[in-house]
């Protein structure tokens, strides 16, 4: 579970680190991804595991479009830039939830009989739920891929450079908007991947994003804003803490453990564990 949190959070961390913008609609991106996965299954009988790349690709486009149509302008605001970003993305989240209710109805849905759903696998006598295991595997693959992408490819370096100094980058002839749109796309694609996997073992409903969004923010902040590795580590910590709290506290309080750990961490290290900014 922690790795999946990490995957959701990395998308957010990427967007934040790149542009210093917090996407408060991140949970809704996840929700969209889950619905996409659901409909691909319902209409074309494509298993979530197979549709994951499709969903990620769709989310990539969606993220880039959201950036180009909305966020781009929010970043230009002269006054109260921080507030404008918070409330624009919040507004977007509300709209997306509304749209989901409108088109998909508020009903809870789930994907029955997927390849992964409900099955367990036994490794050395320990039973592990299959979907979570596959999720963890996919997450690790995605992290490794992302790491190489950022550090080994030209576009990855362009992302880094734009983040550090948009002005200088413009001089070199890189279009800032293209890079940022790509960054949003990538962030959304990652959460899309997470959504597709989660679709096979979570109920899907319009508000589903909200329950994961706060945990995603906490995860990112825990690792330190802007640190992709931090988000990954944060995800693992959050997963572990959640599992541990579940042992000692009633299930309804399991998030309290996560939140408490977050508060504890930022009080000791106000910039998160691996934060630089």
């Amino acid at each position, binding site marked *: 579970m922690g790795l999946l949190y990490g995957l959701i959070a990395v998308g957010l961390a990427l967007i934040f680190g790149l542009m210093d913008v917090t996407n408060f609609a991140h949970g809704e991106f996840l929700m969209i991804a889950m619905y996409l996965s659901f409909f691909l299954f319902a209409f074309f009988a494509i298993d979530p595991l197979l549709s994951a790349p499709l969903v990620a690709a769709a989310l990539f486009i969606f993220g880039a479009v959201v950036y180009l149509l909305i966020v781009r302008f929010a970043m230009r605001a002269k006054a109260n830039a921080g507030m404008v970003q918070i409330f624009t993305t919040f507004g977007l989240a*509300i709209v997306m939830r*509304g749209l989901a209710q409108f088109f998909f109805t508020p009903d809870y849905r789930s994907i029955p009989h997927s390849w992964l759903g409900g099955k367990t696998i036994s490794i050395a006598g320990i039973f592990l739920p299959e979907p979570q295991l596959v999720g963890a595997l996919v997450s690790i693959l995605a992290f490794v891929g992302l790491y190489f992408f950022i550090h080994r490819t030209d576009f990855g370096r362009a992302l880094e450079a734009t983040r550090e100094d948009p002005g200088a980058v413009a001089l070199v002839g890189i279009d800032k908007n293209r890079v940022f749109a790509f960054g949003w796309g990538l962030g959304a694609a990652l959460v899309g991947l997470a959504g597709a996997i989660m679709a096979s073992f979570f109920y899907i409903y319009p508000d589903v994003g909200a329950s994961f969004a706060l945990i995603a923010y906490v995860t990112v902040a825990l690792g330190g804003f802007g640190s992709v590795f931090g988000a990954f580590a944060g995800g693992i910590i959050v997963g572990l803490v959640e599992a541990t709290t579940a042992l000692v506290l009633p299930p309804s309080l399991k*998030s309290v453990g996560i939140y408490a750990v977050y508060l504890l961490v930022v009080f000791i290290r106000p910039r998160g564990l691996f934060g630089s900014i």
Partner: protein
Amino acid sequence: MDKEFAARRRRDLIIAAVLAGIAALTPLFVKDVVVQNILILTLMYAGLSQSWNILSGYCGQISLGHALYFGLGAYTTELLFTKFGVLPWFGMLAGGVVSALIAMGLGYPFFRLRGHYFVIATIVIAEIGLLLFHNWDWAGAAMGITIPIRGDSWLKFQFLRTKLPYFYFALALCCLAWFVTWWLEDSKWGFWWRAVKDNPDAAESLGVDVFNSKMGAAAVSAFLVAVGGSFYAQFVSYIDPESVMGFQFSLLMALPAVLGGIGTLWGPVLGAAILIPLTELTRFKFGGSGRGVDLIVYGTLIVLISLALPRGLLSLFSRPKKTGAAR
């Protein structure tokens, strides 16, 4: 220049008095219960947003966890009333004090955080509060508390047959929050807060006690919001964790101020006057369908207004600033 300034302060006060007067007369003409309800909520949120604005707008510490204080106000009042028979009026004060104390207690660690870390910490702490109340059996846990109704009474601040007392209380709360803001705006605290918001380092160098400024703002803000929470509890006469401490309250306190003009005297009132009726009307018109049209309309508006008017609606009215070259 001083005269000009004094005149402007006086003008604000007169406008406020006139508006309050007009508001006080509306029940004479508005008999429709649904509309009265909307008016009450509008006034309440105007007051809440005004209080939120003190900490987040003036002092610049963006809190999205004020639902915590709202809920604390509601719960303190109702727990005292149902468990110990303490009259809501005292409960209201107690709730305010409890919230202010908790706000200051939280301030110690919280005010070291900056930017997003602070915002997320406020969301998180409200969420913790929500979860704790959910699991606190003595306080009714998820079932909440139903306030026993024993007929209309000013003493117990509960009314079945008429909404008018609630209306006037909401109006009084709104006026109080406005007046406190007005009064503090031209005080040492007001100046300190704005200085802390704009540049804490510079403020520090000018002898501003940055930490205590934030603490003061947090205490005043939390106290007023808690009073609002107590009022709301009496008004709806049933509370459970979600219905008084849910995240939506944090949002609904922040939005009017942001929409109207954050860190301004009139922003929250203006924002609430537009936003709350809109929220209620869209909910009333489209909400019943359960199809989320209200959310779509509402969200779109928020996006558009934040993009088009980053300084809030109030910036439409302000005269262009004098920006001639230096002598």
